């Protein structure tokens, strides 16, 4: 079973507001409410592509009940620890005219020591039937900053491959544990390495070091519409066409979904990158999270520009 861990889920509220600017009063012509958080997004997107997964983490209050209910209707297996308080709401304002996105995020509910212990016991049990683990997103108050490293080490004891997409200290602890695939926040890596990561040469120099820590695949974004993939078969730069992009919201989750599906279907490295990039691109072509269809993703695959560095 593919298991996704979202420790700080959210209800994502997307508002489409043409010519949005701070200080004004606007009426949204469209509002979309969906369960969110990186792991949950991956579970929902996997489900769209016909793959089953189980989602786990913490939920609270009315927002938590809403998320649980939507996941149930999508036939996604759930194993959440319920805590006091309220699961956060994240608000995104998309201005299609000015091509600007604005986000506002809450910290999330406090996780008590008892709830954290209960989650670890559930997690340990879930590992018995996990074949791939996806970890991602921010941490709610009360959860230790090094949890991703701990969860990856526990998964490695069961020889379970792990994918992580995080930032800051949680990402650092994850990298120290050596995940199989890491989506690297380039701003964080830039701060840690003390090197500006705007040039391709610098990105390659810094991220290549992660291979030494046991990270098989490392992915980092490049100039908004591209990603650099460090794979066991070489380093690739993949680019999408920026003209068709409407919203970049959740594109990283779509990319990870594509990498998982590519691996599940035995694609070679280049096809896997093309498929993952096409997933991210397709997700970016509309305001709604997720994919229009599998056909729409496959139609974009040949249009992904792929360059290999030797």
């Amino acid at each position, binding site marked *: 079973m593919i298991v996704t861990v979202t420790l700080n889920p959210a209800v994502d509220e997307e508002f489409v507001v043409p010519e949005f600017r701070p200080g004004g009063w606007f009426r949204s012509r469209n509002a979309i409410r969906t369960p969110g958080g990186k792991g949950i997004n991956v579970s929902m997107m996997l489900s769209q592509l016909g793959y089953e997964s*189980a989602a786990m983490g913490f939920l609270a209050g009315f927002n938590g009940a809403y998320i649980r209910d939507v996941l149930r209707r999508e036939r996604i297996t759930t194993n959440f620890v319920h805590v006091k308080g309220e699961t956060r709401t994240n608000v995104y304002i998309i201005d299609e005219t000015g091509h600007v996105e604005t986000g506002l995020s809450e910290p999330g509910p406090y996780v008590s020591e008892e709830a954290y212990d209960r989650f670890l016991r559930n997690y*340990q049990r879930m590992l*018995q*039937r996990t074949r791939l683990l996806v970890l991602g997103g921010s941490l709610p108050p009360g959860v230790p900053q090094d949890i991703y490293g701990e969860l990856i080490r526990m998964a490695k004891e069961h020889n379970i491959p792990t994918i992580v997409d995080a930032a800051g200290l949680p990402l650092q602890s994850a990298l120290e544990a050596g995940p199989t695939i890491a989506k690297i926040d380039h701003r964080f890596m830039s701060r840690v390495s003390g090197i500006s990561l705007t040039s391709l040469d610098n990105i390659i120099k810094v991220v290549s070091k992660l291979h030494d820590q046991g990270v098989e695949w490392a992915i980092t974004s490049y100039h908004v519409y591209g990603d650099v993939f460090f794979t066991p078969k070489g380093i690739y730069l993949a680019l999408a066409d920026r003209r068709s992009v409407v919203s970049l919201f959740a594109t990283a989750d779509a990319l990870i979904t594509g990498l998982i599906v590519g691996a599940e279907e035995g694609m070679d490295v280049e096809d896997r990158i093309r498929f993952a990039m096409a997933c991210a691109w397709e997700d970016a072509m509309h305001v709604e999270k997720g994919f229009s269809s599998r056909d729409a993703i496959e139609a974009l695959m040949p249009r992904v520009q792929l360059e290999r560095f030797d």
Partner: protein
Amino acid sequence: MRIGDLMDKDLTSITENTTLKEAIEILSQHNLTGLPVVDELGALVGFISEKDIIQASLPGYCDYLVGAAFIPDFDQLSEKLRKKGQEPVGKYMTREVIYFSEDDSDLHVALSLIQKGLKMAPVVGKDGVFIGIVSRAHLIEHIMCEEKEN
């Protein structure tokens, strides 16, 4: 229809070592009336319901109770619950659990739940691992939706 296709795929469960206090908290937080008890591998080993917990606290009265309104003294119940709170679920859970296989038909499950007077029951996979819950409410919802679609 297979029950595996319409069950609630929620894996909320506890182990035999979980305390009654924690079980009560989980029942309350998840708005459930009963919890599957599993081993370290996730295999189903028992089931504990609200009634089992009340029975653990007021063993002498439980057989006469139809609803909570008949409990003579809530102070007595709360004091006994506090005392029992640290005891393990394994001591009071039902070990002879009525459960279903994911391949069982919806009709078979519906009849069994009605005949045995159960509100909900766990569903297990081929390896005996707990994979979901089926409830009377689910089945009624399913029958209602099917009627609408037809």
